[in-house]
């Protein structure tokens, strides 16, 4: 099947408006007869559920957590971008569009990104009307900050808890519809398959995580807003329950999976402390606005720090290597995430890592504290040369800006970041790849939609800071409600979809069989044993920098691990109870397939772009020597994989990307 | 407005209002008792006025009795409801980590105060009602003199009774240490004055019962 991205004709700035003017609408009376299933209740799923219910559709929403409010969108810290230009610093829809495409290293679809930039301003209006308490200035108007390597201040925020506030906003909109009976909420339910009837997505099979009951649910369309698959690395900043299962089942039912290798490794996370570690904690990127990243210049200092015979703050200024400022003088500490992450890895690989594992660099606030302290002393007419006073005043400013993050760091690491630099290291954070969708956000399965991080979406090969929240809410509040209506307008005479059909029965039986296999298999090793092994392979060979040898090995190793998993996995208990090991087993089984496709995709893409860095595709000389080199001639396409059984049999379909409004350039942050 | 007393917040509010009323009464009671330390005559005069003035006897007294009963009954109702809200208790609970002993034991300090009120009624109120309304002697005289001061002193002869009073007042202090401020929080007052109110409430909660103890001991030690 050839990929049709269904991008509307016409100039980019008119596409979305024209599109909305010409789609088919469903009249309100008919909407009452149409059911929509939404899986996942994060920013994308939650906002979509609320909006579709409000339009009049009957929505059934599913989440595996005990409440929609706990979706992992809640953990997003930094902020949300919107082209409001409240600061009058030259921002515009076009500039947000441009920054997003450039930040994504020219691997996203122009029309989608432009639409995203266009609706971004609406998101802020909407959220404020819903009572989301964004940070404000003393005049009562909204405050902005600059974020993640862009030249304007367009990021709206609520301290370090923006994701939480936006999610609770969407949750409150859902609650209103749940109260009205327009959304039927299924908590602690996990989707285990998509059901297709006559080629169209018409329902899902779920497992009630409390009772183990397998249920059939039907609808006229199915929407997946199930988030990313970063947990394929075992250790990531994702929640423990975040998984690829819904997206992967959709893939197995015919939805193409696009660009799985595009993964964002976030530069500022708390380093791994030992083998017991179950997850990694992100420290907001906003910290890089004030923190300076460095490692010691001299190896003996590195060793002294590891042995705890030297304190980092006692290392003289000239013995510190502020490597981002050195390598990228124009952007310094604010280079995009992929660049910052690789630079940290480069220093640590060279032996300059500053903790026991050798995988950490410093993020230092001392100069920011001094700068702010002097400023405050000046404002208050106090002595700017009183070091103790300046430090105190500066710490107060830093506390106001990042207090919750500093507290979190201190709780985890047991060090006071006001007085000693933080230690950070990159960690898997976000997956730009995902289920392939067209301009309507529909997958290659008719009636099956995919929104938010779960789709391959708008971020190309690398996502800019504060854009994930924007995309999730744009998809759910403002895009999907239009595009799905166009599709559902053909279903006004269909009537209710029966679950008593062969298609549902077959899907349910398949699900039961698999669950049954797990609880009866007499294996040796726990699910986590395999998940950790998979994570190690992924991190070492498909992580921040990739090469042909490593990727080829990874593919073989994952295949072998998968075979071992099916032979030797041990799941205690039964299906008919709350059984977290069983739930995990199903998820890890899917990760073991995805992981291989991921490596295969990385092997196929013989270029470096965004989060995907191939050691064999770098600038060979000149000022940019050693930096990532994109290959637009051969790889300016979306790699969409079709499921054919084993991941190794997956068939590649290419969606050629056309850039009419933005000129392709190599990224430079020098 | 209907059903406000059936809501959790309505009950809290009623509890707080009755508490505030009782605290004002307590202050007045204390002030009059304190007179007995300084001047038997003034104490007698004021006591006689309070005991015979119609507005006190027929308006304030019933209101007070209603307030006391209401506060106790509501306290029990809330306690029962609150117990129902957790039917399985913790195997290990460290309440001291997050709240004061006083706040967690209002029912016990309250019961101690209730027991005291029974004793107090037997000691003073029932004989008083008996003399005035059953026997019909509204004169307040005994052998040609006001009887109030004399009766007061007489009651505090017994070290047992004085001991019981002292213990009851300690419970009252414990009750007030939480209750005073709690009443303000319940009626919705939590603002820039809260800090000052907290200090004042501590002074009141300790000062008033201490004063009562002082009066009891004073008469016990000086009475003949």
């Amino acid at each position, binding site marked *: 099947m050839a990929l049709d991205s269904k991008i509307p004709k016409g100039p980019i700035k008119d596409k979305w408006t024209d599109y909305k003017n010409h789609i088919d609408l469903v009249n309100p009376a008919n909407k009452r007869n149409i059911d929509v299933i939404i899986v996942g209740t994060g920013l994308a799923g939650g906002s979509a559920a609320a*909006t579709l219910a409000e339009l009049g559709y009957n929505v059934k929403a599913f989440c595996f957590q*005990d*409440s*929609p409010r706990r979706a*992992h969108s809640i*953990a997003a810290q930094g902020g949300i971008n919107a082209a409001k230009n409240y600061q009058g610093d030259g921002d515009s829809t076009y500039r947000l569009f441009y920054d997003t495409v450039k930040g994504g290293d020219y691997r996203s679809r122009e029309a989608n990104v432009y639409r995203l930039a266009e609706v971004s301003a*609406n998101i802020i*209006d*909407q*959220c*404020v*009307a*819903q*009572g989301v*308490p964004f940070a*404000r*200035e003393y005049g*009562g108007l909204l405050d902005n900050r600059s974020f993640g390597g862009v030249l304007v201040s367009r990021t709206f925020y609520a301290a370090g*808890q923006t994701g*939480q506030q936006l999610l609770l906003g969407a949750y*409150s909109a859902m*609650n209103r519809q*749940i109260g009205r009976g327009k959304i039927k909420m299924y*908590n602690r339910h996990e989707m285990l398959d998509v059901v297709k009837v006559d080629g169209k997505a018409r329902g899902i099979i779920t497992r009630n995580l409390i009772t183990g009951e397998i249920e059939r649910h039907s609808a006229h369309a199915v929407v997946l807003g199930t988030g990313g698959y970063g947990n394929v690395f075992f250790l990531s900043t994702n*929640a*423990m329950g975040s998984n690829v299962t819904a997206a992967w089942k959709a893939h197995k039912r015919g939805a193409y999976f696009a660009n799985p290798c595009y993964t964002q490794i976030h530069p500022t996370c708390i380093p791994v*402390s*030992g083998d*017991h570690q*179950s*997850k990694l904690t992100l420290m907001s990127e906003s910290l890089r606005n004030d923190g300076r990243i460095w490692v010691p210049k001299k190896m003996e200092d590195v060793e002294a720090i590891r042995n705890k015979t030297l304190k980092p703050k006692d290392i003289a200024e000239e013995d510190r290597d502020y490597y981002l400022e050195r390598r990228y003088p124009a952007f310094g500490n604010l280079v995009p995430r992929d660049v910052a992450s690789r630079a940290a890895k480069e220093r640590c690989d060279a032996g300059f890592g500053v903790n026991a594992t050798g995988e950490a660099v410093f993020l230092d606030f001392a100069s920011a504290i001094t700068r702010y302290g002097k400023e405050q002393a000046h404002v208050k007419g106090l002595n700017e040369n009183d070091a103790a006073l300046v430090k105190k005043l500066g710490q107060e400013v830093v506390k106001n800006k990042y207090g919750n993050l500093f*507290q*979190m760091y201190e*709780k985890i690491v*047991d060090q006071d970041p006001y007085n000693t630099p933080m230690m950070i290291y990159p960690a898997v954070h976000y997956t730009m790849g995902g289920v392939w969708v067209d301009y309507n956000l529909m997958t290659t399965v008719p009636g099956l939609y995919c929104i938010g991080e779960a789709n391959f979406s708008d971020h190309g090969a690398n996502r800019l800071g504060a854009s994930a929240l924007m995309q999730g809410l744009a998809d759910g*509040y403002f895009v999907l409600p239009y595009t799905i209506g166009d599709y559902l307008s053909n279903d006004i005479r269909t009537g209710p979809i029966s679950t008593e059909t062969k298609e549902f029965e077959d899907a349910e039986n398949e699900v039961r069989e698999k669950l049954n296999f797990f609880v009866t298999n007499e294996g040796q090793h*726990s699910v986590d044993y395999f998940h950790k092994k998979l994570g190690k392979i992924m991190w070492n060979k498909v992580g921040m920098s990739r090469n042909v040898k490593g990727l080829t090995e990874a593919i073989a190793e994952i295949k072998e691990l998968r075979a071992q998993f099916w032979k030797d996995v*041990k799941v*205690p208990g039964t299906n008919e109870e*709350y059984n977290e*090991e069983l739930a995990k087993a199903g998820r890890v089984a899917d990760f073991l397939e995805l992981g291989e496709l991921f490596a295969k995709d990385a092997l196929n893409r013989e270029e470096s772009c965004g989060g995907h860095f191939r050691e064999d595709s770098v600038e060979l000389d000149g000022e940019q020597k050693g930096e990532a080199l994109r290959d637009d001639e051969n790889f300016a396409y979306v790699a969409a994989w079709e499921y054919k059984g084993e991941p190794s049999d997956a068939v590649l379909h290419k969606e050629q990307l056309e850039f009419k409004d933005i000129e392709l350039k190599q990224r430079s942050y020098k | 407005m209907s059903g406000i007393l059936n*809501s959790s*917040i*309505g009950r809290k509010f009623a509890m707080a209002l009755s508490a505030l009323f009782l605290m004002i009464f307590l202050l007045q009671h204390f002030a009059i008792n304190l007179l007995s330390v300084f001047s038997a005559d003034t104490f007698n005069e004021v006591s006689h006025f309070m005991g015979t003035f119609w507005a006190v006897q027929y308006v304030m007294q019933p209101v007070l009795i209603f307030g006391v009963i209401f506060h106790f009954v509501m306290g029990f109702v809330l306690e029962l*409801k*609150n117990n129902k*809200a*957790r039917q399985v208790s*913790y*195997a290990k*609970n460290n*309440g001291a980590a*997050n*709240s004061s002993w006083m*706040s967690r034991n209002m029912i016990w300090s309250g019961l101690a105060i209730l027991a005291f009120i029974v004793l107090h009624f037997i000691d003073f109120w029932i004989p008083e009602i008996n003399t005035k309304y059953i026997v019909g002697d509204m004169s307040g005289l005994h052998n040609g003199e006001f009887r109030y001061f004399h009766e007061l002193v007489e009651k505090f002869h017994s070290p047992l009774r004085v001991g019981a009073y002292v213990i009851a007042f300690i419970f009252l202090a414990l009750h007030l240490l939480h209750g005073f*401020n709690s009443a303000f*929080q*319940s009626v*919705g007052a*939590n603002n820039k004055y809260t800090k000052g109110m907290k200090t004042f409430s501590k002074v009141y909660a300790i000062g008033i019962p201490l004063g009562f103890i002082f009066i009891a001991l004073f008469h016990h030690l000086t009475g003949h």
Partner: protein
Amino acid sequence: MNLTLKIWRQKNASDKGKMVDYKVNDISPDMSFLEMLDVLNEQLVNNDESPVAFDHDCREGICGMCSLYINGEAHGPDRGITTCQLHMRMFKDGDTITIEPFRATAFPVVKDLIVDRSSFDRIQHAGGFISVNTSGNTIDANAIPVNKHDADKAFEAATCIGCGACVASCKNSSAMLFVGAKVSQFALLPQGQVEATDRVLNMVKQMDEEGFGNCTNTGACEVECPKGISLENIARMNREYLAASIKG
């Protein structure tokens, strides 16, 4: 560190349940409390025993899923954190640690340490929202200026993660801090004032129907709240409720 754990085991909602003792060895002080439980569960699975069920998800203190009552306190002995942020350095080698589910009639136990907190959701369904359509066709965000002080207070109230530690810690199992936080967030913002009367009446009504106890202002909730939500929010709700009762 080597530890003894006394853990509440209960097969399902109808089982009676009991405390069971376990031993875990070689626990690193850098582990989080939940990672320590992971070690126990790995051990149980390897010994063909049933692992201890407990709720957890984000493991960074924001989702509000984890809900353990540890040594007599919600989220354990540390302050301003959830269970996932509690680290084993708070304990000593040889300690015995008691681990129970959050207890309240309105939070029935589902299994072991997992409780059903859907009563919180139902309170939110009753009024935890501002009734605006999500079409995006509202007025410009800056057309509604909000006094910074109020905006900050609203934000502080809004940081509630809905974990239920307030209910678990309260001797009366009262949910007033949770409900007060939501009522306050909207009461402090001009957008929320339009339907303030109905909101507070409906949310309190639902709260009472769910079987939570009455607040007696012990303040335990504020102390144990991972996000430090202030008692001020309860006072504000009391005011809002009383005013609303008189009005409507």
